[in-house]
Structure formats: structure tokens, C-alpha cells
């Protein structure tokens, strides 16, 4: 019966069952122990009750140990007391029995990581040290003391006999009892038919050999002795068989069975130990069985440990294979020479699509394949071969490359990343990721952003129609008036050539001025963003301010520039940066539209240091009204009819240029929106 550890305070049935079991087991153990007592010898060869107590204590929680001891007491008194010993001695012997169980179980709980398991050499070592040596050693002192004091027997003789008896019993009974209790039922449920047959065969063999021990002795002493030795020898392979095939549990049960057979034979004055004085027979049996039990248990634990390690290794390998097979990225594992150790299914599928197919077999040279691809005209392959070779040799920690693979079913964009293999022999793990869909999505997003920025630019320029018309009107007026004036100068009584030439010069200047306005409009209305080049931010801000000067006049707003002298050059897209400045200044002009004349003012400042240029647009409008954190959100606007895209697009443009953009209310009134861009290599103002 496996005594399970239960925490239910109300489970009296389990407590009662435990008590009854302990009482019955202790009773049975005492009966067996008394039966294993050679006539006229005080000590039994084996004394099971102590080991039964130890086993039960190991299988129950410490809070229930008092119940265990109390349940065993009546059985002890009933049986040991009937042997004619005085009651004080009977009670003293019970106390010493309990002390051995307490020392053994308490010590094992403290020192072993799994007190009820014998599946490693360390755990068996702890068990032998505590339960087979230490506990009997110490409790035998109490035992011998009680017997010497009350029974009048020699102290050291009693101590030695108790020590050997209890040690042998602990070695044979405790593992068998505990393993049957913890995993006996499980084995019965899960064993295969073959295992059942084998166990039955082993059990039958032990019984047969044990029975042979009980046959009458041959008349010839020599023949009888040889027959006994041969019979005894048959036990050894059976015990080894049990240890190798059934682990510590089988070994301990087989050992207990064999021990009982030998002792039973000796009790009947049969078997290889007959003929000796009872006391000597007892010691001989103990000294024969203990040296066999110790290495047998150790061997069984080693076999079990190895079996579990192999099982773990198989499970680990299976898990790794499953993980590798489940990955959607193509994985190739290379050794130090660049040859394939293993690949996963995803790589096999990817490799089939290449022309020629990429290597997938173990031993194939992946890096040489890359070199071959380079020779056949794939420029990325040379860089890949060099990079991955550096990784497998350990001279490089990480390498990745992106390339486009032309396939019959369409081009694919593949990113290959290599990392060193974490083992002493070196190597690398390459992952191949198909990012085609991702790149397509990025391109689409980029196109959409560009389209949106263009729409915003067109919208802003559309809002500046009156301003643009005003800006064109001025030079057109100049051109017409100058032309008419020149005509008058030339038609006069005395043609004033100088005056006419001056008017013609002014016409040329006005025409260029009008052309500038058209060029700036055309630049802003371009669909694509233009190219990246060196851009003088101060000049750009000045140009946008000139563009908006008419708009400021129309709105009756003073637009003031406070720009740092000299250029402040950044690398960027001129059109996009113009759009940012345009948005900020237009927002400022609109913010002060309904303010008093003294507040109808927008200031644009620039300042720079060695690393950055910062442009600020300051207005005295109503400010952000508690919504600074939303100012850059797409589609957020406080302007009726506004799209809410201006600042959002400005932010994305500034960030794309490696800068930051901020918006904050001014201390007194209005708001300031500023952006900062990193200066280019030649950019210091």
C-alpha cells in the first residue's frame, strides 16, 4: 500500500488506514524477524520492524510520524512482550527501534534531494551512509545499553549483532518497501507484456534456486558443499539480471527474496551455511549478504541513472528536432569548415527553389556553394561567403546580408543571418528569412506616405492661392508698367534711351522674380520627394518666408525672421524640409488670425551649434490649450475644415532626417513649434 502524503485535516479514514497498516506491517515484520532468528541465537539475522518503520516514515509527512509510532507500539508489545522479556526491556527495545527509524528517515529527508528514490549513485550513497550505517550504528548503542542493563547480556556483543542485523535489514527491506510503495502500482499498470513475462521468469528462477537451497544435503560432505556453493552462485546472475533489467526496485525485491531464502534455509540448518554454530551462522549470513547488497544497489542505481540520462537525451534531441522542424525560417547548421551538419524542413523547401538548388545534405560545403554563386554572377554571394566564413571561424560575432533570389515563381527577398554555434568545436547557425512580403508592405507604406505628403503639400499650396496670386501680380505689374514706360521714353520728342534701358532691365528682373515664384510652386507640388542633398536650412527658411510674405500681408500679420547669419547645412530632402517649414509658418499665421494687432506677429528663429540646427516658429495665438501631446497626432486638428495632417507629416519628415520636433505653449501667450536637425559634415554655421 502506497501511503500517500495527504494534507486533509478531516481525512480520518486515511489516518485510521495508516495506523492499521503500520500496526499490521510491524506485526508481520516482527513475526518474520522472530522466524528469522536462528535457534539459540539472540539476534535475528534480519529484524524487519525497524526498516518497516523507516520506510513508512519516508512515505509519510513528519507531522504524522507520532501516529506511526503509536500504531506500531501495540504490535510490538504484543509480540516482543510475549517472548518473555520484562516490560521495561520491551518498551526500551521499542524506543530504540523507533530511534533507528527516526534517525534514518530524518537524516534522509535532510541530506537527500529525493529520500524515496534510489535512481542515482549519490542518492544510494546518502541512503547507505544514513540508513544503513549511521542510524543502526547509533541506535545499536541504545539497544545494546538497554539489553545489557535490563537483560544482562554483553554490551559489545549485543551492539555488534544489532548493528549487522539492522544494517542488513535496512539494506534489503527499505529500498524494496519504499519502491513498491511509490511505484509498484505504476509499474503494474504500465509494464509491457514482455516485462511481465520477464519479471515472472526472474521470480520463478529465484524461487527455484531458493527451493534448491532447502534440498537435503548429499551424503558426501564435499559433494554437498560444492552443490551448495553452485546453488548459491546461481543467485548472483539472477540478482544482476534484476538490477540490469528492473533497476533499483527490481534489484531490491530480488535481493530481499534471495536473502529471505538464504536465511530461511539457514534457520532449517540447510543451505551453504549449515553446520555452523547459530551465532556464527547469523554473522556469516550477514557478512555474506551485506557485501553483495551494497554493490548490487549501487550498480542498479548507476544503470537506472544512465537509462534516465539516455531518456532525457532522447527527449531533448526529439524536442530540438521538433523545434527545428517547426521553425518557418530556413536553418542551416555549419561546422568549422563551413560544411552542413543539419538543416530543417523550411530550408529544404527554400533551397529547392534556388537555381541551382542550394545544398541541404549533411557534409555539403555551404560556403563553397556561395563562392560558386559569386563566380556565376551573383555579387552578394561573395560578400556572404566571406562573412559566413568569418563567423564559422569565430573571427566575427554576427553577419547578415539581404539579397533578391530570382525564382520561377517570382523574385523573393531573403535575409541570411549567421551567428556562431555555441560549442567548443565552433561552427555557425544560419537563418534564412523570406522578407519579401515585408519589403513589399514597406514599399507600399512608403508610397502611401509619399502620396499623403504630396496631398498635404498640394493642400497647403492651394490654401496659399491668394498669396501666390499676389506674389505673381507684383512682378507682372512691374513688367507691364515698365514696358509701357519704356515705350513712352522712346516715343518722346527726345528719346530717353537711358531711362528706357533702365525700364528694360527692371523688366528682366521682374520676369526672373515671377519665374522664381513659379519654380518654388513647382518644387512644392512635385509628386516625389526629390533627392537627398546638402540643404542650407537658413536659406531654405528665408525662401519659404518670402513665399509666405504675401500671405502674411494679406492676413495683416507681421512675419519676422531672426535667423542666425551664415549657412546651416544639413543632408536632406529639400522639398520635404520646405514642407515642414511651410506647415509651421502657415500654422503660426493662422493661429494669430483673430488676435489683436499687437499679437498678430509670427517670429521664425534659427540657431545652431556644432552638431545641430534648430528652427523655431513662435506665435502669440491661443496656444495648444492643453493638447500639446496630441499636436502631432494624425488627423488631429483644431482648425475647422483642416485635415490634421500638417504636423503629423512634419514630424515624420523631421524624424526621417534624424531630428526631433517639439511643440509647447509659451509662458505668456501662444505657442512655439521647433524642430532640430543634425548638421551635415560641412554644416557648422
Amino acid at each position, binding site marked *: 500500500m502506497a501511503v500517500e502524503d495527504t494534507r486533509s485535516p478531516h481525512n480520518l479514514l486515511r489516518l485510521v488506514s495508516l495506523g492499521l497498516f503500520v500496526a499490521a506491517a510491524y506485526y508481520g515484520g516482527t513475526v518474520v524477524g522472530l522466524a528469522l532468528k536462528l535457534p539459540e541465537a539472540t539476534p535475528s539475522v534480519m529484524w524487519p520492524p525497524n526498516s518497516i518503520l523507516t520506510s513508512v516514515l519516508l512515505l509519510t509527512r513528519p507531522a504524522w510520524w507520532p501516529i506511526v509510532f503509536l500504531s506500531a507500539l501495540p504490535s510490538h508489545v504484543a509480540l516482543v512482550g510475549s517472548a518473555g522479556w520484562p516490560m521495561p526491556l520491551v518498551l526500551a527495545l521499542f524506543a530504540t527501534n523507533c530511534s533507528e527509524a527516526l534517525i534514518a528517515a530524518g537524516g534522509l529527508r535532510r541530506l537527500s534531494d529525493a529520500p524515496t528514490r534510489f535512481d542515482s549513485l549519490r542518492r544510494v550513497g546518502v541512503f547507505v551512509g544514513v540508513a544503513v550505517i549511521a542510524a543502526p550504528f547509533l541506535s545499536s548503542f541504545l539497544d545494546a545499553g538497554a539489553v545489557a542493563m535490563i537483560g544482562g547480556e554483553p554490551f559489545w556483543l549485543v551492539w555488534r549483532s544489532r548493528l549487522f542485523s539492522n544494517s542488513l535489514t535496512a539494506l534489503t527491506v527499505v529500498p524494496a518497501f519504499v519502491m513498491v510503495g511509490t511505484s509498484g502500482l505504476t509499474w503494474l499498470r504500465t509494464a509491457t507484456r514482455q516485462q511481465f513475462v520477464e519479471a515472472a521468469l526472474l521470480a520463478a528462477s529465484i524461487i527455484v534456486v531458493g527451493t534448491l537451497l532447502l534440498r537435503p544435503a548429499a551424503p558426501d560432505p564435499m559433494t554437498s558443499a560444492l552443490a551448495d556453493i553452485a546453488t548459491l552462485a546461481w543467485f548472483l546472475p539472477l540478482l544482476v539480471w534484476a538490477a540490469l533489467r528492473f533497476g533499483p526496485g527490481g534489484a531490491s525485491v530480488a535481493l530481499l527474496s534471495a536473502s529471505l531464502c538464504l536465511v530461511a534455509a539457514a534457520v532449517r540448518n540447510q543451505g551453504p551455511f549449515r553446520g555452523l554454530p547459530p551465532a556464527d551462522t547469523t554473522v556469516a549470513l550477514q557478512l555474506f549478504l551485506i557485501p553483495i547488497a551494497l554493490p548490487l544497489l549501487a550498480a542498479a542505481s548507476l544503470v537506472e541513472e544512465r537509462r534516465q540520462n539516455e531518456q532525457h537525451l532522447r527527449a531533448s534531441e526529439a524536442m530540438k528536432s521538433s523545434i527545428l522542424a517547426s521553425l518557418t525560417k530556413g536553418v542551416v547548421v555549419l561546422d568549422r569548415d563551413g560544411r552542413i551538419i543539419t538543416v530543417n524542413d523550411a530550408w529544404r523547401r527554400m533551397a529547392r527553389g534556388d537555381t541551382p538548388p542550394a545544398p541541404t545534405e549533411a557534409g555539403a560545403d555551404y560556403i563553397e556553394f556561395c563562392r560558386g554563386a559569386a563566380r556565376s554572377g551573383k555579387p552578394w554571394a561573395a560578400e556572404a561567403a566571406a562573412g559566413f566564413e568569418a563567423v564559422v571561424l569565430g573571427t566575427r560575432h554576427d553577419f547578415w546580408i539581404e539579397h533578391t533570389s530570382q525564382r520561377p515563381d517570382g523574385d523573393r527577398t531573403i535575409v541570411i543571418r549567421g551567428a556562431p554555434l555555441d560549442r567548443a568545436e565552433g561552427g555557425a547557425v544560419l537563418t534564412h528569412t523570406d522578407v519579401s512580403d515585408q519589403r513589399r508592405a514597406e514599399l507600399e507604406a512608403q508610397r502611401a506616405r509619399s502620396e499623403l505628403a504630396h496631398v498635404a503639400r498640394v493642400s497647403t499650396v492651394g490654401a496659399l492661392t*491668394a498669396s501666390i*496670386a*499676389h506674389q505673381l*501680380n*507684383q*512682378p*507682372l*505689374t*512691374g*513688367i*507691364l*508698367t*515698365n514696358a*509701357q*514706360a519704356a515705350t*513712352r*521714353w522712346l516715343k*518722346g520728342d527726345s528719346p*530717353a534711351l537711358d*531711362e528706357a534701358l*533702365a*525700364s528694360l532691365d*527692371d523688366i528682366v*528682373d*521682374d520676369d526672373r*522674380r515671377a519665374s522664381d515664384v513659379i519654380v518654388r510652386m513647382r518644387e512644392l507640388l512635385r509628386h516625389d520627394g526629390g533627392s537627398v542633398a546638402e540643404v542650407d536650412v537658413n536659406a531654405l527658411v528665408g525662401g519659404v518666408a518670402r513665399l509666405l*510674405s*504675401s500671405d*502674411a*500681408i*494679406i492676413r*495683416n500679420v*507681421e512675419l519676422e525672421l531672426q535667423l542666425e547669419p551664415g549657412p546651416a547645412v544639413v543632408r536632406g530632402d529639400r522639398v520635404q524640409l520646405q514642407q515642414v517649414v511651410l506647415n509651421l509658418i502657415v500654422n503660426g499665421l493662422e493661429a494669430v488670425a483673430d488676435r489683436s494687432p499687437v499679437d498678430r506677429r509670427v517670429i521664425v528663429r534659427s540657431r545652431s551649434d556644432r552638431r545641430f540646427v534648430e528652427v523655431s516658429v513662435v506665435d502669440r495665438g491661443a496656444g495648444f490649450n492643453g493638447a500639446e501631446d496630441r499636436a502631432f497626432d494624425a488627423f488631429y486638428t483644431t482648425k475647422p475644415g483642416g485635415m490634421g495632417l500638417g504636423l503629423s507629416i512634419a514630424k515624420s519628415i523631421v524624424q526621417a532626417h534624424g531630428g526631433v520636433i517639439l511643440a509647447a505653449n509659451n509662458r505668456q501667450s501662444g505657442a512655439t513649434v521647433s524642430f532640430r536637425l543634425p548638421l551635415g559634415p560641412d554644416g557648422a554655421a
Partner: protein
Amino acid sequence: MTAHSPTIFVVDDDLSVRRAVTGLLRSAGFRVEAYQSGREFLDALGVRPRRGCVVLDVRMPGMSGFDVLECLAARGRTLPVILVTGDGDATTAVRAANAGCSTFLAKPFEDEALLDAIRRALQQDDAGAV
């Protein structure tokens, strides 16, 4: 009757427009004084009586053409004013008429239109001076 010849005062913030109009009026034989802002014109005008007329741009930074008209009226100046603007819409035209300006021209304008307006304005100024 003042002793000075009539002067055409050209007030426009745009340099090229000022130069072009100045050139045109001088080619027609007029005496011209050009100013780039309403404030500069009023300061130069001072309190001395002057004969002539004003060619005044509407959209200027700071002081608009309508602001200059108000100042002239407040000072009791009766110089005829010809308003010129890039906004040729009806709203501006009505506002100009209500402000008492004699003529309203949209840019770009024909030389004869400006010159005719100036001649009418000078006649009006002469009639007022008598």
C-alpha cells in the same frame, strides 16, 4: 493756390512696382515721390499743404492703404488718392469707395488707366485748392 507743382506720391512696399510706376509717371512728365510704407509717406508729408495726388497700394505690411486713408482723413488732408491692389474684388472696391478714394485700380493696370486717373485726381485737387 500753392506755389508747388503737383507731386504724385507713389506708396507701395514692392520695390519693382515703385520703380515701374515712378518711371511711367516721370515718362509722362510728372513729378514723383516714392515711399515704401504708409508710415514713411505720412511722416514725409508732414503738415505742409501739398498739391498732387497719391497712388496708394492697399496690401502693405504694418499700415495698409486703408489705414493711410484713415490717417489722411484724420489730419484733414484732402489729397486725392488712387488705390491700387492685386485684389480686384468687389469687396475691396466698395471699401475703397466708402473710404473716399477717388479711383480704384487693379494690378496689373494699363498705363493710360493710371495716367487718366492721375489727371482726374489732379483736376479734383486743383478744384479743391481754388
